[in-house]
């Protein structure tokens, strides 16, 4: 028997599988399809202080082995999440959930985290400093180490819950941002958010996305994500949650080998709503295939090529 359990910032997970924010809503759609308690946990929809509609449509475009989105943080706002979504979630999900938090100022990040800090259902705060689809916020905080440090510091001051900073790949050196977060007391980092991209319609000559640009996700980004997880895991000593194009149990193992303590799955939920359930089910056999009895020595356990 293999042990699929992992620990993320001191909280045990039955398995490392975590549906990623923005692809799983607040859990309700998926709870109708399968028992979501079989997941490690999930990261709910990015939540801001005030309700947001997001960007105008179209906000979805396809690309080879992936998709672009420019949703722009549509969410009902932190108060409604606390008063409506969390009580509804308690009926179908009995594990600590990961709260994904976004903002347009350091103060907003801190205020949303402060309000979530009082919620027992929330295990971790995943602080999204990497949304590429909003102006004057989101990614602006994740592409500058000083801004990333400022958000981390402000959030750290309002909560004892584990905080994970969700990092942007749209930077020259992601390890610099990760180290800045670690230095200010982050309990972990999660990466990667989407890669900024574009598509044009050849007939209309306009961008397909009304917002112009969007974030690329799906299997197309997996090698990029894997490389960044590996770089960051080697640069910091806090846990790394890996994500980006993961769509199979083998992808999960590869992400963990690169250094991820747990793995988020995003775009693939939208194409196969059962993918996380299926990966959880496939994980023990995949672990046996590679002789993994537990994840302890597997996480970050890559071997180097030897000179001959």
């Amino acid at each position, binding site marked *: 028997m293999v042990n699929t359990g992992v620990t993320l910032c001191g909280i045990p997970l039955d398995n490392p599988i975590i549906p990623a924010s923005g692809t799983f809503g607040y859990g309700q759609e998926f709870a109708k399809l399968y028992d979501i308690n079989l997941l490690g946990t999930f990261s709910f929809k990015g939540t801001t202080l005030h309700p947001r509609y997001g960007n105008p*449509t179209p906000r979805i475009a396809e690309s080879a082995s992936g998709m672009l989105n420019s949703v722009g943080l549509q969410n009902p706002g932190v108060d409604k999440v606390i008063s409506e979504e969390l009580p509804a979630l308690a009926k179908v999900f009995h594990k600590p959930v990961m709260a994904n938090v976004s903002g347009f100022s350091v103060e907003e990040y801190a205020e949303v985290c402060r309000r979530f800090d009082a919620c027992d259902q929330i295990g971790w705060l995943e602080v999204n400093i990497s949304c590429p689809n909003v102006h004057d916020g989101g990614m602006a905080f994740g592409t500058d180490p000083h801004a990333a440090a400022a958000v981390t510091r402000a959030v750290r001051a309002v909560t004892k819950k584990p905080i994970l900073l969700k990092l942007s790949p749209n930077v020259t050196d992601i390890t610099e941002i990760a180290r800045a977060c670690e230095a200010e007391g982050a309990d972990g980092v999660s990466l990667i958010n989407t890669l900024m991209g574009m598509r044009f319609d050849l007939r209309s000559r306009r961008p397909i996305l009304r917002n112009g640009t969007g974030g690329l996700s799906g299997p197309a980004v997996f090698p990029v994500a894997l490389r960044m997880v590996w770089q960051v895991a080697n640069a910091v000593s806090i846990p790394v949650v890996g994500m980006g194009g993961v769509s199979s149990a083998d992808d999960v193992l590869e992400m963990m080998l690169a250094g991820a303590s747990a793995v988020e799955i995003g775009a693939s939920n939208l194409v196969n709503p059962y993918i996380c359930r299926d990966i959880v089910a496939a994980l023990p056999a995949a672990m046996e295939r590679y002789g993994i009895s537990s994840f302890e020595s597997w996480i970050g356990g890559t071997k180097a090529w030897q000179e001959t």
Partner: protein
Amino acid sequence: MLQTVFTVAENRPLAEGIHLLRLAGDTSAITAPGQFVNLRLDGFFLRRPISVCDWEEGGLTLIYKVLGKGTAALTEYPAGRQIDVLTGLGNGYDTEKSGEFPLLVGGGVGIPPLYGLARRLTLQGKHPTAVLGFNTEKEIFLADRFAELDVPVILCTADGSRGVRGLVTDGMAQVCKYTYLYTCGPERMLRAVYAACPVSGQFSFEERMGCGFGACMGCTCKTVTGYKRICKDGPVLEKEEILW
């Protein structure tokens, strides 16, 4: 919603740029005309959402327009080929609201879901009339099938090659009285129909979708009653809740 595997029973051209696809499989998740299915095609990451034209136990009919590489690839799917499908998506039309003489207004590839609706309305003893709009005669499809249901059809073509020359609103002007309106078509047509329609009704919208089942917020629109996901809370909206 149900994830299932359908088998292609028939896949053939129906009119210029328009194809008919009959699929065999479990249709139990489809509960109302105007709902859609989401097809996973080999080599394409996102699924293709297509409205259900008609269905019965064990099979359904889709009519699709070749718009891009995905739908072009779908035309090559032979009988016997299996397709992974999410079925029973969206809310669909409510036939209870129709009154005795509903008017069905469709444009181009927006017409197929109105056929399944017309068949159910006639089975309920109602007397629908259909106004069907096309660009030109060569693109006409399904009009004869409405006629087989004894549904009076007013054909409109933009170039006047058949029927009323003009838009569906020109065809609507020939119907003196109707109790309710059901419509589906391009947004510009829906706007014109909205402006021309004196009664209440249901409008079916189209949007680029990520998931098709309400998870990604990719297709949200603003309505009088708040934000609605076209895929999950729609695609059918009440006339009174539409914000243009």
